[in-house]
């Protein structure tokens, strides 16, 4: 672990010479497919550190929002500014962990090796990364035979291998058992504490409570509410979030 930490710190130092990609400013983001607007005027600002939970009913555009922010897609209208950069220019300084991890048809170790090599990182960090996510003992096993929780931990190790300044997580613990959920939350929290800016999509109120510094609640293509955790959980301002919090069905 200490090796991996040392490298991240060294990288953060190198990153300091580059222009920062935080805070984030999102203005009037619109994403349309044909006539249907999935996102219809999304605006919010995020500070330089912490863990932002992005919530909202199914189909409210959470996954698409992450892809827009990560520069994998272009919005129909609106502006995303990471510091002074457009989203598409800073993809390499961010990492996205998908709900269903896409792992290479290779061993666990080779999945990490591949990314370290492709991104010009020190190959020697692999063991420390695997150790960090508790997969050192599985290094030589085929990655695609891992359990759901292990596969997601490998996806996290791979994301961390790129030394991201921002990490997106798209429902990474959906359909995992409680122990796996906690293991993944621990890894994400440690990354957050080391200064990685976290944007975390979840459906799980309990998880949101455990992880959130602030909450962005999407509803009907807009930000229905953006509040610090201390204000959101006792009493959300918007009705949709209140219903969601009470386990009601939000449409």
């Amino acid at each position, binding site marked *: 672990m200490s090796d991996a930490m040392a490298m991240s710190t060294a990288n953060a130092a190198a990153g300091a010479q580059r222009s920062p990609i935080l805070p984030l400013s999102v203005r009037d983001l619109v994403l349309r497919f044909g006539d249907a607007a999935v996102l219809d005027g999304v605006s919010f600002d995020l500070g330089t550190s912490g863990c932002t939970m992005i919530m909202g009913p199914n189909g409210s555009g959470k996954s698409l929002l992450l892809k827009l922010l*990560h520069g*994998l897609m272009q919005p129909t209208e609106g502006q995303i500014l990471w510091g002074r950069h457009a989203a598409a220019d800073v*993809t*390499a300084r961010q*990492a*996205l962990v*998908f709900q269903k991890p*896409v792992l*290479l*048809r*290779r061993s666990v170790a080779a999945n990490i090796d*591949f*990314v370290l090599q*492709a*991104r010009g990182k020190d190959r020697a960090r692999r063991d420390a990364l695997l150790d960090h996510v508790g997969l050192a003992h599985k290094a030589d096993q*085929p*990655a*695609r*035979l891992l359990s759901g929780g292990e596969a997601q931990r490998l996806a996290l190790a791979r994301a961390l291998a*790129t030394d991201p300044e921002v990490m997106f997580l798209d429902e990474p613990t959906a359909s995992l058992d409680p122990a796996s959920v906690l293991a993944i939350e621990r890894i994400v929290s440690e990354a957050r504490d080391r200064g990685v800016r976290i944007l975390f999509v979840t459906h799980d109120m309990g998880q949101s409570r455990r992880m959130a510094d602030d909450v962005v609640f999407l509803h009907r293509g807009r930000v229905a509410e953006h509040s610090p955790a201390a204000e959101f959980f006792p009493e959300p301002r918007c009705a949709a979030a209140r219903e969601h919090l009470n386990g009601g069905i939000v449409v």
Partner: protein
Amino acid sequence: MGEAFALALGLVLSGDPDLAEIVLLSLRVSLTATILACLIGLPIGALVAIGRFRGRGTVLIVMNALMGLPPVVVGLLVYLHLSRSGPLGFLGLLYTPTAMIIAQTILIAPIVAALSRQVLEDLHSEYAEQFRSLCLTRWQTVQALLWDARYSLLTVGLAGFGRAVAEVGAVIIVGGNIDHLTRVMTTAIALETSKGDLALALALGIILLVIALGVNAAVQSVRMTAARQAYV
């Protein structure tokens, strides 16, 4: 018939030198053609699989159409190029194993290209978003796809080899079925059968069958091992 079969088995088991020569030439020609076809077909397949360029649809149609090239037509075209009066006649390649390798390569390169394109495109649709998130270069993407599709591509190569080694129309035109020079299993079987020497024809037929089934079985077992590790 039973007698011919017994004679054939005798030939195979005694390791008859003429027979061995024919079998080895067959393997050399078809394996070389398969390797060349892979060197040509895989990059083309990969390019079309991940590329988004104008005319891609046309390339796809042409690639798939070329898969069905009739061997005798390929043989004829290669013959016209390599014959004394042809544009490449000065190379003196007609009726040599090299001419046969050229014909078989032309015949199976489109098969390798079209089949690998399908394999790589399917895999790419699975990996593309993750790879874009990782900011991989195009070359890194191609390398990763080729490696991760390795077991499927082995089957693609096998399909090419199977077609090459069993093919008779092209090699008989450009090779000429010359004894000790360009006689391969399929052309020898055709000739010996027409001459009535069923023993040699049958012996070669048995070997061809064993090679075809054996290579298939070997590739299948490699694939099954890989599948158990979820590497396919």
